[in-house]
């Protein structure tokens, strides 16, 4: 509020800088703490120091030497990418139709996806557990990809239809005048224009899939399809690791890296995606 009508004095700038610093510390502290833990050796792990006295990559070497973690990482990456790709393709098609076309049943679709966005995911765990066992997809990649697509679709549809409303649609009309069918207009004119929005949505959907824990822990039972968030809680102080805290921290840091990269490179897009979808939808 201080900015209203006032001159940008140095005092105000210092004040804002201090506030910014508070926010930065607030946001980064838990992340830096787990990074610090992951860099401690097994001897100094329990010393309670905030900053490790000496840096050791022991924990990282340990986790990458186990199939438990490497397999989980591969599962996480594979499942999140496939689910994101499918959700974004389906979401793009539906969002285009919602933003541009007039057809009965449109409001129904918007309503259904809103319902799913609010849906308590745990309510699906019991029936999906039983249904997936019956279909033989329990503890497989498709068994996780399906619910991820389902819960990512509302997010994708809202974000994308918000983006699609901003596109200059006269171009589409012009293409249609030149003899393009609605399908061609979609593929050749609109799709390239929509690419930035689609990309932003893909990031948001990926973060959602990458984050999931409830489905990952309920619909898997072995290393075969367990993703990293679920595998973390199975890192017990077994023979290889005396204290799982070091391994858990290292694994946690590894799966945080993509998130940090997304945030650093695509901050603007993520903010735009989250706010446009939320306010307009």
């Amino acid at each position: 509020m201080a900015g209203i009508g006032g001159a940008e004095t140095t005092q105000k700038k210092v004040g804002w800088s201090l506030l910014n610093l508070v926010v930065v510390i607030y946001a980064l502290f838990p992340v830096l703490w787990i990074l610090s833990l992951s860099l401690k050796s097994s001897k100094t792990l329990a010393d309670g120091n905030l900053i490790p006295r000496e840096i050791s990559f022991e924990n990282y070497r340990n986790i990458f030497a186990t199939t438990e973690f490497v397999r989980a990482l591969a599962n996480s990456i594979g499942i999140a990418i496939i689910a994101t790709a499918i959700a974004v393709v389906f979401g793009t098609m539906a969002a285009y139709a919602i933003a541009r076309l007039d057809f009965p049943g449109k409001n129904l679709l918007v309503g259904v996806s809103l319902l799913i966005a609010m849906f308590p995911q745990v309510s699906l765990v019991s029936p999906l557990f039983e249904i997936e066992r019956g279909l033989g997809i329990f503890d497989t990649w498709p068994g996780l990809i399906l619910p991820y697509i389902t819960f990512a679709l509302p997010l994708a549809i809202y974000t994308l239809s918000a983006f699609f409303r901003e596109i200059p649609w006269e171009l589409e009309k012009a293409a249609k005048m030149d003899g393009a069918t609605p399908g061609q207009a979609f593929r050749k004119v609109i799709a390239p224009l929509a690419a930035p929005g689609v990309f932003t949505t893909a990031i948001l959907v990926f973060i959602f899939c990458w984050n999931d824990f409830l489905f990952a822990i309920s619909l898997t039972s072995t290393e075969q399809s367990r993703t990293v968030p679920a595998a973390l809680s199975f890192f017990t102080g077994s023979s290889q690791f005396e204290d799982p805290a070091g391994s858990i921290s290292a694994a946690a840091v590894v799966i945080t890296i993509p998130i940090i990269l997304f945030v650093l490179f695509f901050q603007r897009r993520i903010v735009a995606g989250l706010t446009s979808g939320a306010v307009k939808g």
Partner: protein
Amino acid sequence: MSHAVTETPGVTTETTADTKKKAVLSEGKRAERKLGWLLCAPAAITMIAVTGWPIVYSIWLSLQRYDLKFPDRVEFVGLDNYITVLSSPYWWNAVWVTVVLTVISVAIELVLGMGLALIMHRALVGRGIVRTTSLIPYGIVTVVAAFSWRFAWTPGTGYLSELAGGEPVLTEKLPALMVVTLAEVWKTTPFMALLLMAGLALVPDDLLKAAAMDGASAWQRFIKITVPIMKPAILVALLFRTLDAFRIFDNLFVLTAGSQGTSSVSMLTYNNLIKGLNLGIGSTMSVLIFLMVALIAFIFIKLFGTAAPGSDTGGRR
């Protein structure tokens, strides 16, 4: 797709009954409809197949005695499971814990989130840095953050356990719930702030300046101008966060695993289903949670009507 098919005949007869000129027009319209359905079909089918049928199925399961440890004793028992769950002190404790966690964490998030939104919206310097760093709690895997908090409070290992005098805070109900609240608030305040920031952008600067000229204090400007204009954004943020907080699971799983009576309803359902392998009871809890969430959403939408997300989306274009 099925609803699409059933709707078609009514629509076409209506349009063909129109004048000749309109019939020509309706051909393009019909193509548009077809394309619309075609484009929506994959999304609609997936969403309905993965949520619609399981919900019906879980209602059916909730009426059975179905314990996977005794698969040969499956039996239709009517509402027996509901009676069992609703008369269980564990269930009511979990409901209570969930409600308290939801109300307290959403209230704190609203206040902190509003502060953060104002910082992100108005900061004279370093706006980019603040926005970037505050996205980290939003994006980070909840389980990762939860482990960070757990280790921080673990006696010996953690830097925060000193604050508690070396006591294992996570093994007592009330302190444990406070740590869970802290973890929830840390993780979700930035998301709240982003939603609120979008609302702040709708407040015209001229109005605030005019009010300042007339001698309104910063607080008066905030309460009398900013908040009323932002109201829809605040309600959307509250609705989304309330429903989300009500599902709390990840943080609890890592921090307490629901011990010492800290189970939320999701945690209790998971424990009955996956740990206890009791499908009947687990499904009953699933149905009850679904009903509670529906009730919360209904109350929000009834109370705040037009502010409900989606209610304006449908009518738009």
